[in-house]
């Protein structure tokens, strides 16, 4: 069964057409990247998959569950990291992770296990006992990412996971994601601007521009098709061509 199945998905915000009928599939265990320029519709797609927004047209399924009609079932399988997110400032990092772990405990994992994993991924050490209001942007991001991964979801939906992290931390995070996908069989759906990141991480990528998916394939396939050295060139090529074609 496909982890994600999207068909002719459309989303209008009033007059703005953010998604104009996109379709793709993500296989179980895959790391799938959604890349595109600002305002292309990446976050919108992720929010629909995370059951936060309802599509204006088309449909999306997660492991066979419709994201609108079976939202409650979908939420048990996924873990979503928003592009811009915060944590409860008056709680400590540890209290935050504990709160989250308790809410996921009913999906069959033990709270202790989740917390142990969360401590490891967050890499915050003793700072976990400090209030979140004292954390830097990067520390908060690591905490949120730890929270998203420690629950070992069937599908992790991460909106620009490494945004705000320095090179070292971003590198560690990517390694973590890759390990997680291999060892735990977690499926990842990631949006990103960073072509290096995408090339390193993703098994397959979809290029989205102005609410339309213009290419899907493995990084290698795309590079070969466009005769490019790296994904960045592919990306620029496609963006310029679509803009030129208008």
């Amino acid at each position: 069964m496909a982890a994600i199945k999207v068909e002719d998905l459309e989303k209008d915000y009033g007059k703005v057409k953010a998604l104009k009928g996109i379709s793709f599939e993500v296989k179980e265990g895959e790391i799938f990247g959604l890349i595109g320029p600002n305002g292309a519709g990446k976050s919108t797609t992720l929010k629909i998959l995370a059951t936060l927004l309802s599509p204006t047209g088309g449909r999306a399924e997660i492991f066979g569950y419709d994201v609108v009609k079976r939202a409650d079932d979908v939420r048990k399988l996924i873990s979503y990291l928003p592009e811009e997110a915060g944590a409860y400032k008056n709680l400590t990092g540890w209290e935050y992770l504990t709160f989250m772990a308790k809410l996921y405990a009913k999906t069959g994992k033990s709270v202790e296990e989740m917390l142990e994993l969360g401590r490891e991924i967050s890499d915050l050490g003793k700072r976990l006992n400090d209030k979140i209001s004292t954390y830097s942007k990067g520390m908060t991001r690591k905490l949120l990412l730890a929270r998203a991964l420690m629950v070992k979801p069937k599908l992790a939906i991460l909106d620009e996971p490494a945004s705000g992290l320095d090179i070292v931390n971003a590198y560690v995070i990517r390694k973590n994601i890759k390990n997680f996908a291999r060892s735990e069989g977690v499926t990842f759906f990631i949006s990103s601007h960073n072509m290096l990141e995408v090339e390193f991480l993703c098994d397959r990528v979809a290029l989205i521009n102005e609410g339309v998916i213009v290419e899907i394939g493995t990084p290698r396939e795309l590079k070969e098709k466009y005769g490019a050295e790296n994904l960045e060139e592919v990306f620029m090529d496609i963006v310029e061509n679509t803009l030129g074609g208008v």
Partner: protein
Amino acid sequence: MGDFLTIVMKELRHMLRDKGLLFGIIVVPLLLYPALGHLMQVGMQQAQEETKVVLVNFDTGNYGNLLIKSLEIAPNVTVTRIEAKDLQDAINKAKEKDYNVVVVIPGDFSTKIDANEKTNVEIYAIFKSVSTGIRESVSEGRINAVVNILNEYLAKLKIKNSASGDPEAILHPIEAQSYSVIKDRVVEVSPSIVVNLFSAQGLSIPIIILLMVMVVSQMAAGTMAMEKENKTLETLLTLPVNRLTIVAGKITGTAVMGLIASITYMIGMRYYMSSLIPSGDSEISLEALGLTITPKGAILFALVMFLTIAFALGLAMFLAIFAEDVQSANTVVSAGIMPLAFPVFVLMFTDIETLPAVFKYFLMALPFSHPILAFRAMLMGQYSSIYFSIIYLAILATVMLYITAKFFSTEKVLTAKLRFRRRT
């Protein structure tokens, strides 16, 4: 149930660490109110201190001495006789000894009284600073009281010597006896005392109830807006937790804080009030008027309060959906709840039954009228109107909570936006 408790606990933990909130519900009522009351009490006590009178007697007759004796036996008055050449001399001497009142009995005092002519006693209160002057006026009052008694005494003495009959009856031929009829029962309490008591209740109960409604509503909206401001709402809404559980958890967390707040405010208010009302003054209580609160009445009233708060919290959460941050949440909640609460203040001054029918039904339609009406009905033992309030509020609260929960399960909770900040 597990999720629900987890969310309630998180809400409480988060709120209990909010310094501003704690200041508002602990420090203000439990420390500031009693401190304020204590300050006023100290002021009042100083005013109630002994009146120290310096007395100068220029009179040689009997009546001057009689007045001095009367003052000497009057409570809270200490009299010191001094010799003085004139008024200025007397005032100087009084100042030296830290006395605050000078009483001067003129030389023709006894002669005039004997001749059935009017005479006077001069009372000088010495103000040492620009203050409220409570002390000085209390002193004046005490001396006036003594002079009044003496006046009556002398008048009766004269009547006895010159007319036949009961001097008291001649001096005060008519006396009004007033009673009050409450709940078809005659009580031997004058209407003015009953009115004082009623208006104290009439003013304070609506204010306390509406204040509580506003405080919990702001708190509830605050917890919602805080999720948006801190960007935690999106994560919260993707957790494997039923949306209704999230709403219920937040409402319950706020209600617990509201309960803590109402207890601390009541304790604080009690201290504040009790320091203002001088102890010993035998106050007429509601019970003395036959207005007792039965356990049944108390339970019904508590139910009305519970439903009112549930409605207010549901409405506040609903309104908070449209706010982006805590600041605009406060604005939306005030804008949403004030119009419902404000007309209710009319009830502070009027009985709903005396209003024209249109106003009456308008007020009855407003949810926040009902706790006030129910409080009065509870005192009067008119339970049938409380049953009506309960049914009406239960319907309103259910509909409100249903609408709020419905909105929470749509994307409106993320996309609905109203901006209240000025554009710069």
